[in-house]
């Protein structure tokens, strides 16, 4: 099954998230992650939705989304030509003796230590999904207590104007 990343601009209206999530469950579409936040215009929000499915499913997802009155625009991002970020906060078992070792690992991934306790360290890391997966894999050796991830946020890369397709 192919993974597709949709960037969906929606009106900032009550119940819009329920409309979108309800549509996915009703139509039996599978959401891998969904992220929503404000945009440059306060009346709109942008959702980044990662869906799984074949081409037929994807076509239906896009069309059904467009049928919602509150959906302004649906773009499928080209995975070869987009900027994608996922962020994770990872709380790891780590006493004083282990800290140096942990910080070395985190530095390789350009992560940040954002909280410390005598027994734990909380790491913030940003990047594409695979990078975060890799870090989580390494931190398992320390013992992961909790993980939270934002899910993917993504935007198209802006092409240089000369390479833009002219109509």
């Amino acid at each position, binding site marked *: 099954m192919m993974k597709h990343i949709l960037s969906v601009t929606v*009106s900032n209206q009550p119940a819009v998230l*329920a409309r979108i999530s309800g549509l996915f469950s009703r139509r039996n579409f599978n959401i891998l992650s969904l992220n929503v936040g404000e945009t440059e215009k306060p009346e709109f929000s942008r959702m980044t939705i990662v869906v799984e499915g074949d081409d*037929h499913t994807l076509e*239906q997802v896009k069309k059904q989304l467009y*049928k*919602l*009155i509150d959906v*302004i625009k649906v773009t499928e991002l080209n995975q070869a030509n987009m900027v994608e970020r996922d962020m994770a906060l990872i709380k790891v078992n780590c006493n004083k003796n282990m800290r140096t070792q942990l910080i070395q690992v985190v530095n390789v991934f350009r992560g940040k230590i954002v909280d410390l306790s005598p027994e734990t360290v909380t790491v913030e890391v940003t990047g594409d999904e695979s990078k975060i997966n890799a870090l989580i894999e390494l931190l398992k050796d320390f013992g992961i207590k909790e993980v939270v991830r934002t899910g993917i946020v993504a935007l198209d890369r802006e092409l240089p104007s000369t390479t833009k397709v002219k109509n």
Partner: protein
Amino acid sequence: MALLSGAKILIESLLKEGVEIIFGYPGGKVIPLYDELYDAPITHVLVRHEQAAAHAADGYSRSTGKVGVCIATSGPGATNLVTGIANAYMDSVPVVAFTGQAPTHLIGTDSFQEIDIRGITLPITKHNYMVTNIKDLARVVKEAFYIARTGRPGPVLIDLPVDVIKTNFDYHYPEKVHLPGYQPTYEGNYMQIKAAAEVINNSFRPVIFAGGGVIISNASDELKTLSKTGKIPVANSLMGLGSFPLTDEYSLGMVGMHGTKYANYAISESDLIIAIGVRFDDRVTGRVDKFASKAKIIHIDIDPAEINKNIKVDIPIVGDAKTILNKLIPLIKTVERTEWLETIKEWKRDYPLSYEHRNSNIKPQYIIEKLNEVLSENSIVVTDVGQHQMWAAQYLKFLKPRSFISSGGLGTMGFGLPASIGAQFGNPDRPVICISGDGGFQMNLQELATISNNNLPIKMIIFNNSTLGMVRQWQELFFNERYSHTLIKNPDFIKIAEAYGIKALKVTDKNDVDKAIKEALNYNGPMLLDFVIPQDENVFPMVPEGASLEEMLDYRKVLKETEI
């Protein structure tokens, strides 16, 4: 600055939208609204159950083309609307439903008769609103009517917290809607239309498959022109019945599970399906991979999401059926399709709709044939759901657009009686005939009160076989005749009608059918006819679920095993 209450603003907005009639039922949270309705220049029809309000608004809309309006109170009033709203949604009927709601400060507290009707109706409305600020009310009403009737029509619900409709505000009805996320396509891509014309002109065995979209778009004349110009036969979906004259030599009648043999054969043998305003429901296609497997498919529909949803389409044209047909017709060449039309003529001759006549039993098909003889062409027939609905769809011959009102997508038993109320209010001068089964009739028979109170001259025909016939038919054919909870004991429908002050007649002999129908039609007021029909009469032809359209069961085959 004229300050009006929210309730008054609502009434003024409805008047601006041209609303003449509302079907509803009052309750605690809509009392302020009903107080304004008390002397408003809008007819309010008091139903006896909110489900009937939604169905009546639906029947009104289907028969007139206008937006139907219904009102219910919060909580149970709102939830009772749900089936009616879902029914309108499945058949793309423009209805605007208003529900009362707890005051905004109590929302979310499980207060008395509070229910999240917006949440409940998310998947069964085209769009819905809760108006929490009086300043939004007029705009929301404007948007709701616009959304309901444009594009692919559908129901819109507006939930009204009681404090909002009691608040005073400066009334100003907006001139325009601003909905950046809603821009329906009407025109149809001309390149696609040209491509379609080319394929049509080069086809040998084309079939037009016309659905409810043709009726919604008022494109019946264009459909006829396309058929006549190109010499192309026309098959209908259930929702498309009435869009093309069923007596026309090019008419194939209904396609699908209970379609005519010649329609199903034509679809199966066709080399080109021109589908207009249909959504390829599973009751139409049968086994999808065998549906029209020799044909290319042109699909004209206003809803892009219907393209390629159930059936892979070769030439999609998104837009309004009427607009597109008007652009398509000039490109269509008259092609002699003698061989194809001759084949179809032979199928019609060899495999006509037929049933077995038996002594003096009243066969349901016979009742419909009698109706064909005596009903005037401007009659509206409303059906409920079940066997009688299929017999009506198969045998009725005089149907015009917006004259066959039936619950298609949702298949809602209990739809017929309240929908006929809406149809009669919308068409006071036309005969309205409501055909029901004994099961479905009892699902909303409280509406006899509405019919009686308003002296609506609806003629109610019950096909009474003391069984939930369609389910019984499946049990007979596919479940070893184990009639689990389908053989029912009915009340005396004559006494029930009379208790509501409605004239009624029971008919048990075939020879009395004609007389009874004529008596009812000549009677100036509501009348109920209770026709007792054989319990074991089944709807044929029948494509078993999951079979291809060519694999039709026929009453003769069934008879061979059981009776002959």
